[in-house]
């Protein structure tokens, strides 16, 4: 179980990759060491042989053949360790001097250099010899060589050391990789376990941190912060759904009990008809609430921003004013309209119309007989500002944030029909248009301003 997890863990895969790269660089390094030590020794041997051949050739030219033979003999005699090889022959390869019994067989590569293995009668061990062949004037053949058996041994030692070094690298690197990945897996397991418990419903649980401030701690802290945020959002959703449940239950309850009462009584066409009509009215109200909620959710999601078009606010406000003017008059109110010409913002016409209609609706609904409702459109410091002001009771400053939430209805307006969604929709529409929604005092009354951001000039 643990083994398969280890094998599947990306940490292990990473450490294997790391090990391979590390091994490769060790290999290159060792190769460099090998070539610079063994190569140095090789070059040194070759230089010695060259110097000796040069010396012997000089001796030959100065002292002649006999002189050369003498020199060779004395060198052979001096070389007690037998590390040097000499052989001088005539043109028929008959030995004249030296410590080689016969002319060695070799393939002439043109350079004169060659390696040979010589049987050694004294040591019973073949000798590895590096030699150079040289043709002296007068067709005398000369080979000079050096015993390189020692050097070969050293080279083999180096190679052995390199192989062991590689093996050690692999073993230590592998073990290190396994240990590191196990350590990382353990920390990831802690996070996985905690998040699984959270997914299983324990939303209060948090991922433990070690206080080391390392990457894992930072990851855990971020996840915890995310969980906190989710928790807050969940609370918000719970709040809203409680509100929805409450606001939909009321009308549903009224519909149900109304129909039940009608059923329990003797069925008379007229009472049935009235009950059904009441039910339909209630259902229409429910649908309106429902639609408003959907519209708010849509506006808040920001999905509609992509199909914004240029909206002539002056026109839009004039239309809304025209729509509400008779209602205002009927309610005994004066509707004053003051619109600056040619104010354009990018936006969604339907949402803006609905937001403005909601504001006018509220103003007409809450302003007592004889009051005044003012709709104005002015050029603000940034963009156009659309204001609906009334002379109604207004909203106390401490409640102004509160009324923008869904289903909020002030105690004072319990008896006025409404869903408590009107201003929420206005707030959502403002948010979608990046407009600032200001609730202010009209002393007396409420003054709601939608301040649009600076936009493109009307073309």
């Amino acid at each position, binding site marked *: 179980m643990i083994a398969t997890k280890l094998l599947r863990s990306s940490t292990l895969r990473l450490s294997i990759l790391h090990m391979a790269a590390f091994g490769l660089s060790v290999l290159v390094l060792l190769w460099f060491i090998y070539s610079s030590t063994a190569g140095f020794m090789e070059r040194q041997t070759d230089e010695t042989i060259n110097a000796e051949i040069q010396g012997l050739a000089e001796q030959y030219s100065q002292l002649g053949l006999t002189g050369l033979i003498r020199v060779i003999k004395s060198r052979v005699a001096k070389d007690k360790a037998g590390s040097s090889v000499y052989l001088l022959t005539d043109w028929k390869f008959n030995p004249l001097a030296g410590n080689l019994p016969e002319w060695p067989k070799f393939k002439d590569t043109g350079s004169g250099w060659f390696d040979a293995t010589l049987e050694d009668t004294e040591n019973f061990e073949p000798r590895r010899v590096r030699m150079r062949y040289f043709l002296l004037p007068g067709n005398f053949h000369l080979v000079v060589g050096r015993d390189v058996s020692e050097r070969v041994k050293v080279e083999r030692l180096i190679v052995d050391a390199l192989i062991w070094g590689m093996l050690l690298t692999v073993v230590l690197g592998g073990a290190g990789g396994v240990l590191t990945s196990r350590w990382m897996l353990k920390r990831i397991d802690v996070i996985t376990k905690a998040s699984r418990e959270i997914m299983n419903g324990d939303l209060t649980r948090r991922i433990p941190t070690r206080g080391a401030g390392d990457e894992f701690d930072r990851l855990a802290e971020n996840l915890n912060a995310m969980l906190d945020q989710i928790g807050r959002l969940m609370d918000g959703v719970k709040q809203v759904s409680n509100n929805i449940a409450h606001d939909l239950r009321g009308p549903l309850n009224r519909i149900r009990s109304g129909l039940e009462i009608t059923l329990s009584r003797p069925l008379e066409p007229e009472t049935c008809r009235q009950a059904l009509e009441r039910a339909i009215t209630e259902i229409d109200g429910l649908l309106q609430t429902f639609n408003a909620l959907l519209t708010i959710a849509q506006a808040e999601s920001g999905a509609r921003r992509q199909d914004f078009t240029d909206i002539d606010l002056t026109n839009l406000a004039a239309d809304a004013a025209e729509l509400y003017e008779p209602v205002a008059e009927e309610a005994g109110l004066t509707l004053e309209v003051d619109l600056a010409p040619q104010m354009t913002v990018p936006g969604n016409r*339907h949402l803006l119309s609905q937001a403005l*209609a909601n504001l006018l609706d509220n103003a007409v*609904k809450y302003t007592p007989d004889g009051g005044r409702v003012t709709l104005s459109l002015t050029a603000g410091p940034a963009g156009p500002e659309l204001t609906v002001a009334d002379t109604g009771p207004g909203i106390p400053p401490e409640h102004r944030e509160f009324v923008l939430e869904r289903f909020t209805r002030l105690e004072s307006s319990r008896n006025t029909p409404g869903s408590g969604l009107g201003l929420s929709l206005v707030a959502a529409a403002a948010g979608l248009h990046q407009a600032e929604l200001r609730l202010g005092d009209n002393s007396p009354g409420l003054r709601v301003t939608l301040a649009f951001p600076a936009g493109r000039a009307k073309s």
Partner: protein
Amino acid sequence: MRVLIVEDDLDAAAYLVKGLKESGYVVDHVADGREALYRVAAETYDACVVDRMLPGVDGLTIVKTMRSAGNAAPVLILSALGDVDDRVKGLKAGGDDYLVKPYAFAELLARLEALLRRGRSDAPDTMLKVADLEMDLVGRTVRRAGRPIELKPKEFALLEYLMRHAGHVVTRTMLLENVWDYSFDPQTNVIDVHVSRLRQKIDKGHDKPLLSTIRGAGYSLRDSH
């Protein structure tokens, strides 16, 4: 008048079929998109009521196929998708009207009748006449029994819409959509106030009221009762 209903919700369909039959229509019902495509190709209908979400072929595809085949029968799309964008999509696909579920049957009937009438008067009217109420569309004037009536531009548009649909029920939503171009219902009955103002202007002082309220449905401008 022969109407095809394409609706996969059988209860809703039965209710629609019953209602339309009682209103004097000949009604066929299919529950499946493919079947609907076959029917509109094989038979001639005066109008179709098509649910947008159907098994097999969806409603918008049906409308598109009908239009590309040269079938111009008016189509009323029914949908549970009530967003403005969905509505635009439905009308772009070739639908003539779009009604969001749940709907009132009266609303559906009024819209269907409006669709069926639409095709008939091809020539642009210059004059509309209902009983002794006359509207001059060129001079933008209205007279009743020869006496001129002063109307504001929106009142004129409202009356024009009512006169074009004279004798039939016009719902509040139809008025909001067609006269004000609003696709939402304001909370207060703004439309009622507008209509009652208009009624004041055209019916006051006349024996025979022309503009009447239809309970639970809307309004109707008609010659006699």
